[in-house]
């Protein structure tokens, strides 16, 4: 009974005290100041201002998470900002470096293609079987346009993934924010009945792309199906093939990232298409953080199921007291539950006992990473915009 009172009392009555909220935000404040301290020393004023704004933004959001006990709605501000500002900074960079968003074949052959994390699962089989990396980029830093190289991105991905599992898709992915923003625009979903079998889509795309990448010896997803090529870097359309590829990118982006999220209020690209998301689901088994449903408190009203942007809750899974392995730890279900039955949980501990402690541990890990990875991307995008005015 004591435990129940401990959990229910603060969330149902009032926001957390100001002092306590500030105190809990302190580690993130220090971390943000450390990460963005470099920007204060920049001679470029737009970079300096962007760094300050981003640091304040990240600290303020974390403070509100502490103050309001809510995760999802504050995290969403960060995530949408990341999704919108990544293309701004990235496109500006490729325009400066290359004069075009289109990457010509000779640049690829020279290994100067910037590397993002999406092709990681496609590289594993060819690398294991042939000791060859089937991506036209540089493995080590300094060799490619992106500067960091594939090894740096893969290392960063692995470190973050081990800790937060598929939380990557809610705190680190610089693509998912656009559709999350789109999904939050309408008040109600126009398309409510979605065949649950579409949830298998990411796994099918993953299977097909892994096999095709091995057969064609190229990252097939990047060449043919990545919707985000439409807002980052596409194949220079010098022939019919290039035109077809770019046409596919644009259609997929418009459909999965703009139109369907507006109609369904779901992250449709993440939930039904992204092969990297499916790959990340495997690592959810490794992460210690998860969301559990306390069966003793659950009515079940299925509000959590409705709120979940990736359809990672079903009536069966709720009855079993857990989410599906595709859960991205965004916190929508936890925030939506009026009875606090959906709770943050650390594996190996008792369910619904001090869930706020579990939330804090997840948030320190994921927000720390968000400040370092997403925050710098936000700052870069902001600096690009500010550069026009300052």
């Amino acid at each position, binding site marked *: 009974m004591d435990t129940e009172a401990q959990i229910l009392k603060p969330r149902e009555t009032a926001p957390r005290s100001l002092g306590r909220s500030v105190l809990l935000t302190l580690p993130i404040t220090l971390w943000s100041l450390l990460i963005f301290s470099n920007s204060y020393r920049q001679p470029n004023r737009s970079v300096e201002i962007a760094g300050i704004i981003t640091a304040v933004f990240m600290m303020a959001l974390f403070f509100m998470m502490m103050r309001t006990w809510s995760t999802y709605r504050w995290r969403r501000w960060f995530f949408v900002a990341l999704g919108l500002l990544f293309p701004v900074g990235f496109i500006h960079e490729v325009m400066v470096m290359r004069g075009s968003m289109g990457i010509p074949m000779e640049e690829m052959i020279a290994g100067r293609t910037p590397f993002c994390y999406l092709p990681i699962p496609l590289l594993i089989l060819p690398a294991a079987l042939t000791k060859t990396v089937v991506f036209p980029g540089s493995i080590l830093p300094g060799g490619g346009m992106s500067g960091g190289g594939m090894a740096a991105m893969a290392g960063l991905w692995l470190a973050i993934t081990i800790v937060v599992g598929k939380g990557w898709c809610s705190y680190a992915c610089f693509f998912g924010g656009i559709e999350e923003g789109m999904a939050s625009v309408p008040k109600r979903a126009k398309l409510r009945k979605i065949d649950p079998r579409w949830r*298998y889509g990411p796994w099918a795309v993953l299977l097909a792309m892994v096999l*095709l990448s091995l*057969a064609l010896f190229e990252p097939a997803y990047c060449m043919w199906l990545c919707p985000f090529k439409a807002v980052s870097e596409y194949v220079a359309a010098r022939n019919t093939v290039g035109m077809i590829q770019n046409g596919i990118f644009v259609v997929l982006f418009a459909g999965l990232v703009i139109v369907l999220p507006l109609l369904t209020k779901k992250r449709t690209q993440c939930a039904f298409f992204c092969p990297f998301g499916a790959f990340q689901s495997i690592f959810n088994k490794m992460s210690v953080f998860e969301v559990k449903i306390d069966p003793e408190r659950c009515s079940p009203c299925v509000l959590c199921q409705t709120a979940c942007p990736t359809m990672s809750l079903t009536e069966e899974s709720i009855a079993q007291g857990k989410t599906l392995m595709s859960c991205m730890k965004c916190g929508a279900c936890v925030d939506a539950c009026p009875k606090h039955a959906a709770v943050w949980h650390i594996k190996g501990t008792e369910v619904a006992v001090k869930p706020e402690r579990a939330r804090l541990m997840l948030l320190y890990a994921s927000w720390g990473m968000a400040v370092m990875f997403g925050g710098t991307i936000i700052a870069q995008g902001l600096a690009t915009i500010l550069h026009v005015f300052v």
Partner: protein
Amino acid sequence: MASCGPVVVPSLLAEGAGVRLSSRFLSTFLGARFLGYLLFAALAWELGVLVALPPAPRLVMMGVVHVLLAGVLLWYAYSIGHARPQPRPGPELVTIGVARKRSITGPAALGFLTGLSLCPPFVIAGVRAAEMDSAAAALLFFAVFFVGTSVWFVPLVSLGCVRRSQAVTTVARMAMALIAFYYLYLGSAMLVGRKVYGY
């Protein structure tokens, strides 16, 4: 294996579970692939210059094979999902081995078409076969080539151990459809004479 993987792995996963069933699927697939090889070998030797044909007719041939492969993959993905369950015998009959009949048409058609498609090692083997002194030597060469490449398929039998559920078969069928669309694009591009990466 890498070239045939996109065809064989999802179609094997879309089938039922069990090592025996997987072995049967792979045997049918490889047997039909062997037939495709032999047919190609006979043609390669008979024509002598099959792989040195002018690009246009060769592209047409490859295009047709890819379009057919796409068609079979789509049909197979559809038919597995809509296969009518066989009438089940009474429990007392189960023990005497009344098994659900499975068609070999799908794996056989896929095997035959992958046997005819021109993956890079296959083209090299075709050149060697065309240089042989006799049709028998060419056929023997292709038979050995077949055995050598088939060894890589043996580990795929273990896919039979993957527990089948609606999720696994749906994922496999969706993947087959995606791969079919890629082959369809590839085949169509070849037929209209456009340049495609890798060819």
